[in-house]
């Protein structure tokens, strides 16, 4: 009797266990397309009832308690997850770099005969024309106009490059431009994710492991960790019940339920001003336009790392932060800007020297049929210093301009076309002498020390080539990395995702067990009925 009743209990329990198992299958099927969902599986275990002592068979049978749910296992592969996050960080670094280099490449895309290359060609063509007609006001005006085009193309390319950096990191000074930058959005989003992770950690710490609830929280935790690793390269260490500690470069960001390292961001200028002693900005500052620091909100925002830029090297944040810093051997917005600036200064130096050198003569504006000695300050390319004075020092692609004197009524005559190597041969009527123009034309093939031993145009082409090569190799790296990440993702999905066939098999399995248990219940019930009628 006792045994029949226990069997009845056991089958009722079996029905309930299989119902729960079917419910887990149903949960799996429902979430088969949920991002980050890990398949769960009900693990059954034998249920024993106390009393099975010794080798008495009857006792042992009495101790059989049927089945119970041992736990709900979550399919997971921690090694793959960590590897995935690491590779995902790197993919995002490359993605960000590729984005920058793509913008750079479009700034320097001179394939259709536009941009600086075309402006340089036009400039030399105007010089060629001037060589034919050194005394012609039309040829001179044409030369000045093409030189003007050259400097304005350089100016606009410089502005585009600056905007590229400003778009990424702000301009280094204004808080408003920082707040409108890409990095600002990224850093805000990252801080939100850190808070979310701390919340999930807190919930995990108080939830029993091996339960549906804990598993769902772990899915959520892994999704957040993946999100965070897109921003930065993190180290993850499980501390308790699935709650994790997340750190970057050895500095903790989240420890259990607490965010102990929140990111803060400020403009380079405000960072420099806040240092003790203050750093002179921008003269003594060779870092990025934005500075990220790590502060601890648990300790009244105490600064943990004042300048964390050097430890944030990977992920979207790392890629963005370092997209504009000129580093030897790397090609990015910073090195492109440096290259353009070198080019601008070299162009100014070369043509200013030729225009003002000893033996060079321009035309006397008071008598355009006569030559006159070119004044020492008869520069072609200049810039304006902070005091508003014209100078030939510190010329960059952004500030290079034509000497304003060239735009005055008599400005066209300032171009020194004539050159007499031997002063004794000077003839003030020799306005047809174009030997200085020929020397200027000659710079087209002259290797310049200031330009790494290349001619002006070759230096520019080499800059374009560097950007193109960097873009091309980055694209290859990105494609490879993308394939790696896709591969790991598929692997993770294969290992931990829901497989419909598996679920359907399980479903049929549990359904069969359920039906069988119900049948056992009926039999036991019938047996009991038989027992009841025995006395009748």
């Amino acid at each position: 009797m006792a045994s029949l009743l226990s069997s009845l209990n056991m089958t009722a329990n079996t029905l309930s266990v299989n119902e729960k198992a079917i419910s887990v299958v149903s949960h799996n099927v429902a979430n088969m397309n949920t991002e980050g969902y890990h398949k769960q599986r009900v693990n059954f275990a034998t249920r024993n009832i106390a009393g099975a002592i010794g080798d008495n068979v009857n006792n042992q049978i009495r101790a059989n308690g049927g089945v119970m749910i041992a736990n709900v296992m979550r399919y997971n592969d921690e090694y793959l997850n960590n590897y995935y996050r690491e590779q995902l960080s790197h993919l995002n670094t490359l993605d960000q770099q590729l984005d920058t280099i793509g913008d750079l490449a479009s700034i320097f895309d001179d394939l259709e005969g536009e941009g600086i290359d075309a402006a340089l060609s036009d400039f030399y063509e105007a010089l060629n024309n001037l060589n034919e007609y050194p005394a012609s006001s039309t040829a001179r005006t044409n030369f000045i106009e093409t030189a003007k085009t050259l400097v304005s193309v350089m100016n606009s390319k410089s502005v585009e490059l600056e905007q590229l950096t400003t778009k990424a990191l702000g301009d280094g000074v204004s808080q408003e431009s920082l707040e409108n930058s890409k990095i600002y959005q990224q850093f805000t989003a990252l801080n939100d994710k850190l808070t979310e992770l701390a919340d999930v950690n807190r919930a995990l710490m108080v939830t029993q492991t091996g339960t549906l609830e804990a598993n769902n929280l772990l899915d959520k935790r892994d999704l957040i960790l993946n999100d965070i690793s897109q921003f930065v390269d993190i180290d993850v260490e499980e501390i308790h019940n699935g709650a994790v500690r997340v750190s970057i470069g050895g500095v903790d960001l989240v420890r259990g339920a607490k965010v102990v390292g929140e990111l803060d961001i400020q403009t380079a200028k405000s960072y420099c001003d806040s240092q003790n002693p203050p750093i002179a900005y921008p003269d003594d500052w060779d870092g990025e336009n934005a500075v990220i620091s790590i502060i601890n909100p648990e300790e009244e925002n105490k600064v943990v790392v004042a300048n964390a830029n050097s430890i944030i090297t990977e992920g979207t944040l790392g890629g963005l932060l370092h997209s504009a810093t000129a580093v030897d051997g790397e090609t990015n917005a910073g090195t492109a800007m440096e290259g353009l600036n070198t080019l601008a200064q070299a162009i100014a130096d070369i043509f200013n020297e030729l225009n003002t050198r000893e033996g060079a003569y321009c035309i006397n504006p008071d008598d355009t049929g006569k030559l006159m000695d070119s004044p020492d300050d008869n520069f072609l390319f200049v810039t304006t210093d902070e005091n508003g004075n014209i100078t030939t020092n510190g010329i960059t692609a952004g500030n290079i301009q034509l000497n304003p004197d060239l735009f005055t009524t008599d400005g066209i005559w300032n171009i020194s076309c004539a050159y007499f190597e031997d002063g004794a041969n000077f003839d003030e009527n020799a306005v047809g002498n174009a030997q200085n123009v020929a020397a200027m034309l000659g710079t087209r093939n002259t290797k310049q020390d200031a330009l790494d031993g290349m001619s002006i145009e070759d230096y520019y082409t080499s800059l374009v080539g560097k950007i193109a090569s960097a873009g091309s190799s980055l694209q290859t790296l990105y494609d490879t990395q993308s394939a790696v990440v896709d591969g790991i993702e598929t692997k993770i999905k294969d290992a931990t995702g829901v497989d419909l066939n598996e679920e359907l098999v399980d479903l049929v399995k549990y359904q069969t067990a359920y039906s069988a248990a119900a049948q056992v219940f009926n039999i036991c019930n019938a047996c009991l009925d038989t027992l009841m009628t025995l006395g009748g």
Partner: protein
Amino acid sequence: MVDRVSTSGKYAQLVADMQQNLINYNRITAQLTSGHKVINITDDPIAAVNIINTNRQLGQIDTFSTNVEMAKSELSALDDLMTLATGYLSSAWDRAVQASNQTYGNDSLEAIKVEIDETIKTMVDLANTEYNDNYIFGGANTKITPYTIDDNGNIIYNGTPYDNPDYIRQTEVADGVFEVINTTGDRVFGYYEAVQETTADGKNVYTDADGRRVIETVEADGSKTYAYEDDGTAYAGDVADLKVSVAEENYSGVLGAMKLLSNSIQMILDGDTEAGYEQMNATLDMFDSSMRMITEEQTKFGGVYNRLEMTTSTLDTNNTNLTAYLSEIQDVDLTTAITDWYMAQYAYQASLQVSSASMGMSLLNYL
């Protein structure tokens, strides 16, 4: 777990594969629609740099071709002018030979002198020809009239002299190769200048009709007074009748020869027959050397012209080769591209078909 394949993993893989096929298909489509193999510089850095360099070289070739054409047309003009000059020189030379026979009377000599004087003026006009707003024969002094004839009949050359190496005008006909395209007036036409004698304190010396020396003094108010050198008395005659006392004559080339010829005829007409004919005979040699000089210049520029002709053909060949090269590195090879495009299309279609067929496959269909 290693060999487990899940439905969601399979979906992810299918999507990644379809994506890859679509990227490939789009890339070839973009190449075909643009006609260019290299659309962004990052597509093929080496080709991109070559395209930029080749475009630049083609631009330079265009410039050089224009320069060569302009230089050739200026050289043609130069040659035509020198041919004209040799024509005038020959006819003046003929007159010199005729006159030096000493058989012509004064009337005939006078007529020859008039003719020679006119030829000198024509020759000066020739030497003052402008081409493209530049005086051809002025050397580097392209904006001032190369020759002027002053009141004393001096034929003065105002251009850069040939012995000043800075007379040249040159044009770039190939990378760093400059071709000189001008010569100077004094080289081709020469000049004539009678330097007036001056006293030790710089005053001009004249002679009157009797051959007495008259000194010109410029007063503080700019007016000029004339007085005899020997006794200091004022010259009372007409200033216009005074003759310049020539200290020395500087001359060269055909203009020098013609001016000397004219002067020698004047000497004969003035009665100084022996000295006149002697000077006339001397001019014959000058005509000869002038003729040789012009021919030499013509030959020199003929050589330059021929070189430019060769340069034109070199530039044309380079242009053709570079254009072909540019097309090779930049333009899409249609046959290959279309074949690739179809293949990419098939691959993409196949991936779509296989994906759609396999996505619906599960045990569900059989339960």
